[in-house]
């Protein structure tokens, strides 16, 4: 089994009309055994920037701690928060530093940039950025997620419809993947508020 599939994960981010959604599954496993069903994969960097980390849980935690520390230092020096595009470049650089001994993680970055324009991107474990206008996926369920998102996505959805779409895409994809699932964690971010919801899907 690949090291990327050791803990199991599923992450998806979608763009809507002046908003975005980012969702993950909640399972923490050790290969075939499930350890916990409330594992946090999505982290808030600031009110308009969220980072999801799929792949090896340990490296996700290390990477999150390093990035949080870098962002806090940036905030102290610049007296403002990081733009999503800047943050994506930072993550990419940090991942490429370890080119020949990488972090076994695939990040998904979602944020509201200048004029509250939604920004999403993903990258591989050595920092190759993939910008998208509609949706990005990562994790062991990524192939199912690509299919589900491609068929369910529509451009310019309002936040309620976006929530329904991303939830259905996530739940139907993790149901086909034994290493991810046990519910979902969805964040809907608009310029004025952040809504966090827990989904109850097939608990198996």
């Amino acid at each position, binding site marked *: 089994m690949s090291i990327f599939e050791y*803990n199991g994960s599923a992450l998806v981010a979608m763009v809507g009309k002046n908003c975005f959604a980012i969702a993950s599954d909640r399972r923490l496993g*050790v290969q075939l*055994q499930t*350890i*916990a069903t409330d594992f946090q994969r999505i982290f808030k960097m600031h009110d308009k920037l969220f980072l999801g980390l799929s792949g*090896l*849980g*340990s490296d996700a*935690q*290390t990477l999150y701690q390093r990035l949080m520390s870098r962002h806090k230092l940036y905030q102290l020096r610049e007296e403002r928060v990081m733009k999503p595009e800047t943050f994506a470049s930072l993550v990419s650089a940090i991942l490429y530093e370890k080119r020949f001994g990488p972090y076994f993680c695939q990040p998904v970055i979602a944020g509201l940039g200048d004029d509250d324009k939604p920004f999403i991107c993903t990258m591989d474990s050595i920092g190759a950025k993939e910008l998208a206008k509609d949706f990005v996926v990562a994790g062991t369920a990524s192939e199912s997620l690509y299919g589900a998102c491609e068929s369910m996505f529509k451009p310019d959805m309002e936040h309620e419809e976006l929530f329904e779409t991303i939830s259905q895409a996530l739940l139907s994809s993790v149901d086909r993947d034994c290493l991810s699932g046990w519910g979902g964690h969805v964040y809907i971010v608009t310029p004025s508020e952040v809504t966090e919801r827990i989904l109850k899907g097939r608990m198996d």
Partner: protein
Amino acid sequence: MECVFGMVGKGFALVVADTSAVNSILVHKSNEDKIMVLDSHKLMGASGEAGDRAQFTEYVQKNVALYHFRNGIPLTTKAAANFMRGELATALRKNPYMVNIVLAGYEKETGPSLYFIDYIATLHKVEKAAFGYGSYFSLAMMDRHYHPDMTVEEAIELAEKCIEEIRSRLVVAPQNFVIKIVDKDGAREHSWRRTTKD
């Protein structure tokens, strides 16, 4: 076939570990204490490579004590868990410690807590945790019978059920188990479950 497991109850946390020290087919001793008392209100049950286990647990214990001396206040359980994770993560890509840890602690402010720390430095706060081949049996037993806010008697009963299951279903089951508990009165040994004297 090392077995360590733990659970959180009402105002306490329990850690159970087997006490066998094995080298291939030989049992060196069956009263090896694998649950280290880190400080007055913390228990650290460790399983894995024998040398790494002894080395790492002692290293953590001494560093926890050093923090207490330097700063005048003890580390919280969460802080100790994160310290351990940091050490494991740093060593992971150089010279990994092959040790899996169940950390139990009690604070007046936050009550009892239990942390699962993998040898790859995956950290998660949980209500019940188990490592080793015994985990297949003890986790299943705990999934069935555990409920939040159990009393000490109920938790000991559940621990006994898990031990019974491990003894009857694991092919090279360990002979003796030790149960340690941590609550507002501190971390201490609770009892043993022996099948052989040592």
